[in-house]
């Protein structure tokens, strides 16, 4: 099924994917072993479960899709792993545990669990734990329902590990992980008169270190940093990050393409990364006037916005990601291409996630889109790009150069074995 979200956990040992059918598949990295040098830390399926089912809202006569919009891992505190998964309306907390032993030697039950005939029991034994094949059990621990009128677009776990927030088009709610029947509304941009609506919330995230700070992006291309210490309702932002529009780029579709589809804090907490339709931008929390870096993802599409509007591609919401050291940023594009930008060397590369180019241990070859002018042999022209093959969801391992790229219904995991500046 079509993958709708990809997320590494905090150690990178586990990788979760959610799909349109409401399923979550978790991959686990195999420990590198000297005996099998070929399986150097590859990811295998660890667990699969159905997170959300389609529901029907009878009051509004609406079907609620089971598609998983976002998955976020909780920091691990004990042997169990936990993650939050959400569809348009309901967030669920799942606990993932392993069972690799089972008790054997009961006195009253036999191996199959049937009660023994007491007359055959002549001595007592203490049941012992014997190893068994690893079984991964996933159970829903909490269901956070009925918090949102509009469609949830993001969730983010706070660094305090006790609370998390969920954002829909107009509101952001703060939840406690242990409390399901109540949430606090911390942002509400719904105008008194819906006729006056001009922008919606598109993404939000908590600061990685400061538990009182969070950011949310809007469809107008602005970012608002809010401080929960300032007021209970954070409608008034602490900082507003907005870049003035370039008048030379104005078109019918300027407003649509300036909408921010994803926002991510850097691991350091000093920067934010945003993705709009044609660019990725790095913002410094200390500078609100404009981003400190702007990278063109596929500027050759700027002249094709009308066709992209016709085929709905202009509404695609691409995600973006930082690498562990915040030196490289990555985002997806069309034709199963994804792009990486090295912030230090200012070099960028375009790579393709496809079966042909992804034989095991093959090195990915950089691709190029030619926009007229000289065309090299393997270049692809803009007009032959396949717009049905889009990479919307990507994730970068928190520490190593391992990336997970979702191309429609395939997941590609690329690892960098040699320390090189570009993947």
């Amino acid at each position: 099924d079509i993958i709708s979200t990809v997320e590494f956990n905090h150690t990178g040992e586990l990788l979760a994917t959610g799909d349109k059918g409401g399923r979550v598949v978790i991959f686990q990295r195999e420990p590198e072993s000297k005996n099998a040098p070929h399986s150097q830390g590859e990811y295998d399926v660890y667990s699969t479960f159905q997170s959300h089912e389609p529901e029907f809202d009878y009051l509004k006569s609406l079907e609620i899709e089971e598609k998983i919009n976002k998955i976020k891992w909780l920091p691990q505190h004990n042997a169990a792993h936990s993650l939050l998964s959400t569809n348009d309306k309901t967030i669920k907390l799942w606990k993932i545990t392993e069972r690799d032993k089972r008790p054997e030697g009961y006195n009253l039950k036999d191996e199959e669990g049937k009660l023994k005939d007491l007359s055959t029991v002549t001595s007592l034994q203490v049941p012992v734990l014997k190893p068994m094949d690893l079984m991964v059990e996933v159970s829903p621990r909490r269901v956070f329902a009925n918090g949102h009128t509009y469609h949830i677009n993001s969730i983010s776990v706070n660094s305090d590990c006790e609370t998390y927030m969920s954002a829909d088009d107009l509101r952001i709610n703060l939840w406690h992980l242990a409390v399901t029947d109540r949430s606090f509304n911390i942002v509400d941009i719904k105008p008194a008169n819906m006729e006056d609506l001009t922008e919606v919330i598109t993404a939000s995230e908590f600061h990685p270190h400061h538990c009182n700070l969070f950011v949310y992006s809007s469809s107008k291309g602005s970012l608002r940093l809010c401080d929960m210490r300032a007021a209970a309702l954070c409608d008034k932002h602490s900082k507003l990050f907005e870049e003035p529009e370039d008048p030379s780029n104005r078109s019918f579709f300027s407003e649509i393409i300036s909408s921010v589809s994803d926002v991510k804090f850097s691991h350091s907490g000093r920067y934010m990364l945003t993705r709009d339709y044609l660019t990725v931008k790095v913002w410094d929390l200390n500078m609100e006037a404009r981003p400190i870096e702007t990278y063109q993802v596929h500027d050759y599409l700027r002249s094709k916005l009308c066709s992209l509007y016709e085929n709905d591609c202009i509404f695609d919401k691409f995600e973006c990601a930082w690498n562990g050291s915040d030196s490289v940023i990555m985002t997806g594009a069309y034709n199963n291409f994804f792009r990486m930008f090295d912030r230090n060397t200012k070099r960028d590369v375009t790579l393709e996630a496809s079966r042909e180019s992804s034989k095991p241990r093959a090195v990915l070859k950089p691709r190029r889109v030619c926009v007229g002018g000289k065309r090299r042999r393997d270049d692809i022209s803009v007009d032959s790009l396949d717009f049905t093959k889009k990479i919307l969801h990507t994730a970068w391992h928190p520490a190593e150069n391992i990336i997970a790229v979702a191309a429609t219904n395939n997941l590609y995991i690329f690892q960098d074995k040699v320390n090189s500046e570009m993947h």
Partner: protein
Amino acid sequence: MEVQKEAQRIMTLSVWKMYHSRMQRGGLRLHRSLQLSLVMRSARELYLSAKVEAHEPEVPLPPVRSPDPRLHQSREAEAVAEAAPPDGEQPSPEPMDTREAPPAEETPARCAPRPAKVSRKRRNSSLSDGGDVGLVPSKKARLEEEGEGASAEVPDRLQPPPAQAEGAFPNLARVLQRRFSGLLNCSPPAPPTAPPACEAKPACRPADSMLNVLVRAVVAF
């Protein structure tokens, strides 16, 4: 002229998209509706200014109405559900009110200036289909008076051109009607399972209510 044609094409496209977005699983998406309405508005402004230049002096410049998001006004399912929509003036719950924000359109109330008073009537909300008539009795009654008697879906069926809900542009509305009568005759795609409130497309309607319907098509979302 090219500009006008292009603008018209985009408006038509936008309306089609709005119509189709209602049929999606999961209901109308507020963000998508907002984006479509923004494009519609830009295209409309361009179309109108091109029209003005192409000597149609009697068409006044569009007052800049509050942005199309006004279309989203009827979003409140809760509002509709909780209280029988009280206010006749209020641009209210359009059919879409029980769904995600309706796309861009001007409210019917805005059509007030139009010659046909019927345009002031709010359309039936989808709530009233299903027997929740008690919640919005007045609307349904008005609709019946109008002789429309159709659900909100109806105008959608007529698949209207980028409607002009402004009462101030009767000429534009007529032009659109003339131009898009072909569109009106072609039926929209087979109704998907979704909106229960959908009713059969009316076979034929008197011309003036068609105009009203056209005008309100935008609202239909």
